Every structure is written in structure tokens, then in C-alpha cells.
């Protein structure tokens, strides 16, 4: 009786250590890490959990689909995606985040729920429930053979892109004065303002960077899921939010690691679970989330003691 379980587990671990599964899981982890940075950066500076982050990615997806259906070149499609997502981010900041900056976290979170569903509804009206197809970069789903193992190009592209984005962000935060201002604002906004740090500028900068990352994620996600619907990236956003909390929301690094970890585990479970059991993936995933939160409520990747720096 124990034999099927044992062989099932053996299959699971056999698949899990498979290089192809590993690279795919790291690729998904990389994409989720970028989303976690986008969410964590805005939380750090504005103390706002942006539930509508997924709809920025959705808007980027529709921009890519729009370009792809008209046969525009990949470059134009990506440029349109960045333009749409960044303009939408800044509009969100100006119209909703900024006026609510002094409100309680509950008010701000509820407002982002409203923005999220508003944008989904607009997408539904404009594009219909079946969505559009963004196929310009479908070629990246083809595998390349590395050392006898077939690896999808998109996994490599996602890992490389995430690495470049994260390095650029670290340089921005640590080497520029706007980065210093953002870190200070995340630690103590009032004192930063007393020193002359412009609140509106810093908050717009955080939202702008998060928006640019959302555009990157939109490009990467549409390769793997080319059908863009109004609920595009919604599930991923919820998973990443869980990951950010699991990692530790109060620091950008721990939030990023949390995003990566949940993406990686998600990819691993997806790759290693037998196909007929893949519907159990969210069950396993969120079961793990609850377990981690019970054991380490302050976050998996936070150091002991109080966390002060949030960016």
C-alpha cells in the first residue's frame, strides 16, 4: 500500500531535481521577484499595498496584444507596453495614492482594490472576456539545448532580465541621490521632508520604477501566457503578495526574496506534480504560506530584531 506513495514521491523528487524543471522554476521565481520589488518599493515609500499592481501588468499585456494583432514590430510593441503601464502608474499615483497618502493603510488598500476592479472592468468592456493574443515573442517559448538538456529560451531571458533589473535598481538606490531620498523616505518620511526631500517627487519616482518593472513583467508573462484577459496577472499578483508577506514586507530585499521563493516553489510544484494533480498546486502553495507565517510571522528572510529600513 505504501508502494504507490513511495513511487509517487520518488517521481516527484526525480522531476524536481530535473534541470529543465529547475530552470523553469528559477525563471518563474525571477518574474515574481520583479513583481515583489514593484510592490515592495511602493509599500516602502508610501506604506501602501498596491493590489492594483496586477492590473498594470494586465494593461501592459493588452498593449502588447494590441501591437501584435496589428503586426507591429516587437520593439514597437514593447515601447507601447512601457508607455501604457508607466502612464497608468503615474495617473494612479496622482489621482489615488497621493491624495490618500495620509490616510490609514486600510483606506489605501481598499482604494487599490477599487482601482484594481475598475481597471478589470474597463478591460472587460474594451476587450471582452476572451481577451486578445500577444504572440510577437512566442518564439521565445522554443527550447535551446544546453548540455543535452532542453531549456526554454524564455526562462533564460527572464532570469537575465530580472538580474539586470535588480542590479540597476540596487545601483539606483545606493548610488544616486534620488535613491538615497527614497531610502530615507521609506525609513522616516517626515524627517526626510524636513531635510528638503520632496515627498511628491519621491513617491512618483517609486511608482514610476514599480511601473517600469510591471511593464517588464508584462513582456515576460505574455510570452508564457499569450492570451491576455481582464484577469491577466491577477492570480500571480495574489501569489506574489503572499510571497512578499512570507519573505518580510518591511524590507525590500526580504520582500524580493519572498517573491522569488514563492515563484520558485510554485514553478517546482507545477513542474514536478503529475499533470492530473496540478489543480492541487495552489493548495500546496498556500498551505506552505500559512505554515511559514505560523512559524515566522515576521518574515522568512528578515533578520532578528526590529526592521527599520524598508527600501
Amino acid at each position, binding site marked *: 500500500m505504501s508502494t504507490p506513495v513511495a513511487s509517487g514521491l520518488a517521481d516527484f523528487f526525480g522531476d524536481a531535481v530535473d534541470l529543465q524543471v529547475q530552470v523553469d522554476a528559477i525563471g518563474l521565481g525571477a518574474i515574481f521577484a520583479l513583481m515583489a520589488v514593484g510592490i515592495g518599493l511602493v509599500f516602502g515609500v508610501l506604506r501602501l499595498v498596491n493590489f492594483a499592481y496586477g492590473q498594470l501588468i494586465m494593461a501592459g499585456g493588452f498593449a502588447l496584444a494590441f501591437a501584435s494583432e496589428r503586426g507591429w514590430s516587437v520593439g514597437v510593441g514593447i515601447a507601447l507596453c512601457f508607455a501604457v503601464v508607466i502612464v497608468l502608474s503615474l495617473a494612479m499615483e496622482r489621482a489615488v495614492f497621493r491624495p490618500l497618502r495620509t490616510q490609514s493603510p486600510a483606506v489605501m488598500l481598499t482604494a487599490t482594490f477599487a482601482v484594481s476592479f475598475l481597471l478589470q472592468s474597463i478591460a472587460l468592456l474594451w476587450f471582452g472576456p476572451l481577451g486578445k493574443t500577444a504572440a510577437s515573442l512566442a518564439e521565445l517559448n522554443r527550447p535551446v539545448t544546453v548540455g543535452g538538456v532542453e531549456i526554454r529560451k524564455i526562462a533564460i531571458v527572464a532570469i537575465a532580465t530580472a538580474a539586470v533589473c535588480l542590479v540597476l535598481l540596487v545601483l539606483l538606490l545606493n548610488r544616486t*541621490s534620488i535613491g*538615497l*531620498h527614497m*531610502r*530615507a523616505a521609506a*525609513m*522616516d518620511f*517626515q*524627517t*526626510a*521632508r*524636513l*531635510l*528638503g*526631500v*520632496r*515627498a511628491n517627487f519621491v513617491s512618483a519616482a517609486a511608482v514610476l520604477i514599480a511601473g517600469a518593472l510591471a511593464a517588464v513583467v508584462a513582456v515576460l508573462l505574455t510570452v508564457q501566457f499569450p492570451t491576455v484577459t481582464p484577469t491577466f496577472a491577477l492570480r500571480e499578483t495574489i501569489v506574489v503578495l503572499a510571497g512578499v508577506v512570507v519573505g518580510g514586507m518591511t524590507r525590500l530585499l526580504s520582500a524580493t526574496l519572498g517573491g522569488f521563493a514563492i515563484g520558485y516553489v510554485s514553478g517546482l510544484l507545477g513542474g514536478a506534480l503529475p499533470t492530473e494533480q496540478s489543480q492541487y498546486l495552489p493548495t500546496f502553495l498556500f498551505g506552505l504560506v500559512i505554515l511559514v507565517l505560523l512559524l515566522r510571522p515576521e518574515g522568512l528572510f528578515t533578520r532578528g530584531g526590529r526592521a*527599520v*529600513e524598508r527600501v
Partner: protein
Amino acid sequence: MSEPVLQIVDVEVTYGGVPAVRGVSLTADAGEIVGLIGPNGAGKSTTLHAVMGLVPLRGGEVALEGRSLRGKTPEAIARGGVALVPEGRRLFGELTVEENLRLGLAGRRETSGNGGDLVDVYELFPVLEEFRDRPAGVLSGGQQQQLAIARALVARPSVLLLDEPSLGLAPTVVDLVFSTLATIRDRGLAVVLVEQRAQRTVALADRTHVLANGELRLTLTPDDAGDTDRMIAAYFS
């Protein structure tokens, strides 16, 4: 006759309807230290916060070099030339000494310069240059207070407001802070000093106002520094 650098006229501040500052007026000119002493809750810090735009003015006016600061944001006031050394220093403990100082550049008015110009504060506070790469949080209390003052000076303000800079410091360090303030005055800044150490403040400042229950009660000059009875009477009036 030029106007004083900082003018506070009939300022009123209320917290939830309760008056905290009631019609306070004072001026500070370049090369002057103006002291503000009084018991806890007298409205000293609130007066400074009103200047910085941290609390709204219920009435009255605050002007810097003749221009009204009323309704401006704290960052606009900081960029306009007023710097506050807040109570409790409010340093960024995880940032290095130099990063804290570079934050002070945010309030500097000149757009010229490459932002790396911290030479004059390092001259004034050599210990900060020595510890420039350490996190501000590991410095001693006295070093942190020097950093807080230095961070405000980096902005090259025309007015420096200090909220109880000697709080919790060892006597020798208090000496250092007070002598630094004298140096800063000699460089031509207008300084407003909120303090609990009444006698030392009266001795240092060009004039010292005693604030009680949100109102100015008395103005003292350095000649009054020995007159303890008068000070005590003003405190409890």
C-alpha cells in the same frame, strides 16, 4: 532698515481645538541666537513645528527674509533656507554618516555643485569625517548630535532651529554643542534654540524668551543669567 531673517508674528496653533501656542511673536536676525525656554508643554517645540510647516497656523504669520512661509510644505520651507535639528535627532540610523549628510543636501538652495561638497561640515565636526562610512546608529549620543547639527548645516540655511540639542548628553558634550552654536552664530546664521537648560541658554543667547502655557512671559538677556529667581518666577508664573 532690512527685515529680520526670521519673523514670527502672533502665531497661534491649536491641537484638536486646544490652544498650544497663543500669539507668540519673535524675530531672529543673522548672527543672532534667540533662546526659547520654558516648562514641558509650554509650546516651544510646537512653535518650531509651526515655522517648519509641520503644524498648520491657526493664526499669525511666519516670514523668512520677508517672504511668508504660511501654507508651504516642510520640504519647501527647508529648501527655502530654514533647517531644523529635531528633538531626539531623528537620524537615519541604518544609513552611514555620509549618507545622512548627503540627505542634508536636499535642502540646499544652490542648484550648482556636484552634491559632494561636505567639506565645511567635516571641518566643523572632524569626528564625522573619521566615521563617515559607519552607520549613524552606532555613533555615541554626542557624535549623533553633532551629525544632526551637521546634517542641518549642509543645506546652508539662513535660519537654524534646534529642538533641545543637549537632551540626554554628558556635560562635556553639552559644552561642545553650546560652543558649536556660538561658532554657527559667528558664521552669520540666525539661530533659534529651544532648550531645557535655562541658565546656559540665557548665558549664550543674545536674548531668551520664556514661554509658559503657550505664551511669551519674559525676555532675558545674558546679564540675567545669574538671576535665578527671576527665571524661576517666570517658569511658574
